[in-house]
Structures are given as C-alpha cells and as structure tokens.
C-alpha cells in the first residue's frame, strides 16, 4: 500500500502510522457532555467504503488527512491535517 504525504509525495505504507478516523479533527469542548465525548473517543462510523482518516508520515513528522477506501484500499487525495477546516 502507498499513501500520499502532502510534503513528500507517494510513499510506501511502511513510512506511515495510521492515526485514526477524521473524527479526531473535531474534539468536543470540555463541557460538551458525556454523549459527545463518548462519540469522540469511542464510537466510530467505521465505514466499509470511502473513508477519511489521519496518517502520520513518521520521517517528516506530518499528519495528513487521507481519503481511502476500506474495501478496495484505493487511496485518494491527502491534505495537511493542520489546513483542514474544522
């Protein structure tokens, strides 16, 4: 499998650490309540198909938001996580 790093281009999967679904981008406020936090920390869409997820390119220290299909493993665009609108 090859993943796109927005800085380094397409690289072997062995250079990356998968870092969770895109739910991580929307951290609730401390007082958002039990349900919101349960949602954020535990519950997952876990899609069989198109997915948006975070990958860390370990050698260059970049978190990317990557489109990937969990059934076909086709990989789409990757953008810098820090630039993703929340």
């Amino acid at each position, binding site marked *: 499998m090859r993943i796109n790093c927005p*800085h*380094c281009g397409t*690289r*072997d999967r*062995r*250079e990356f650490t998968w870092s969770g679904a895109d739910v991580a981008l929307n951290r609730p406020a401390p007082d958002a309540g039990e349900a919101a936090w349960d949602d954020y920390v535990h519950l997952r869409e876990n899609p069989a198909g198109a997915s948006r997820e975070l990958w860390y*390119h*370990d*050698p*260059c*220290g*970049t978190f990317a938001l990557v489109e990937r299909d969990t059934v076909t493993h086709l990989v789409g665009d990757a953008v810098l996580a820090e630039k993703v609108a929340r």
Partner: protein
Amino acid sequence: MARLIAKSPLAGLVPVEVGGLTLSEVETGPVTSVAPFKGKQTAVSKALKAAVGLGMPKVGRMDRKGEARALWVGRGRALVMGAALPDLEGAAQTDQTGANAVLRVEGPAVEAVLARLVPLDLRATAFPVGQTARTMVAHMMASVTRVGDAAFEVMVMRSMAQTLVHDIGGAAKAVAARDLV
C-alpha cells in the same frame, strides 16, 4: 580544569571500504534546526539568506553555499549545517550539532546498495543531485540526500550510527557478491 574532548558520531566506525563502496563521515560543523513560526517563513528565509547565503530549502532539497548547507528535514524545518547562526527573528532555533550521524556513501554500486534498504526510487532520473528525502533506511528513520553521481549522504540519529554502518556494509557486501555467482 579538565577540558572535554569532542567525539563525532561516526568516530571509530568509518572510514571503511566495503563491497566497492567508501563509507566516510561528513563533518557537519555546527548544526542548527531552523523552524519558522506561523507566517514567518519568508522573513526567516530572508534572514537566513543574509546570514549564510542560503534561504530555507524547498521541500526535498539540500542547498549549499560554500561550507554552509541547508537541508530540508521535514514539515517546515531545515537543518543548517556548517555555519553558526545568529538569532533569526521568528524561528525556533535548536542546536543539533552532533545529534545525527551523517554518512557519505560513495561508489559505483551505491544506488544498488541503497535499493536494499530504502523504500524509494533513488535512481538519478527520479532523484537527482541536491534531492533529499525523509524516509527509512532499513528500520531507521533517515534523511537520504544525493550529493553526486555515485554519492549519497545518509543521516540517522546519532545513537544508530553503528547500525547504519552495519546495514549499509552488509548490503554492499551482498551486492558485490552477486557478481561472483
């Protein structure tokens, strides 16, 4: 009072000739990590250029000017080697002298040898002189930079210097031995 003696990361491990390759240590001189803060990239690059004649390197580039080198090492960060830096307004500056082992690997088989260890197309067509990559060398994170037609510099964490020399040496021996089959 006693004076401390400096010892470089690859001291005692190189120079060596192995499998037709020459492995030697790159004397980096002072090394500083430069990472501009938000919105300061251009200003820092200018200041750096004024100081050592090199701006912040583009992604995947190593630039040189005299003894000074500026090596891209990841997201918004460069290592400036071979020149002491003044305070650059708007950047995090961190002394990294001696933090990394920088090994020069040279010889006709260098591409074939690195192909044993690096998951990257390092042939000159894809990876010309001056190109650098943050990648892996075997199990180690590394910067791999082409510095000549048959020469690369490989940089890993200082503590892994011995493993680096061992891995590259082993690959070089195996590549050389193929010719005997």
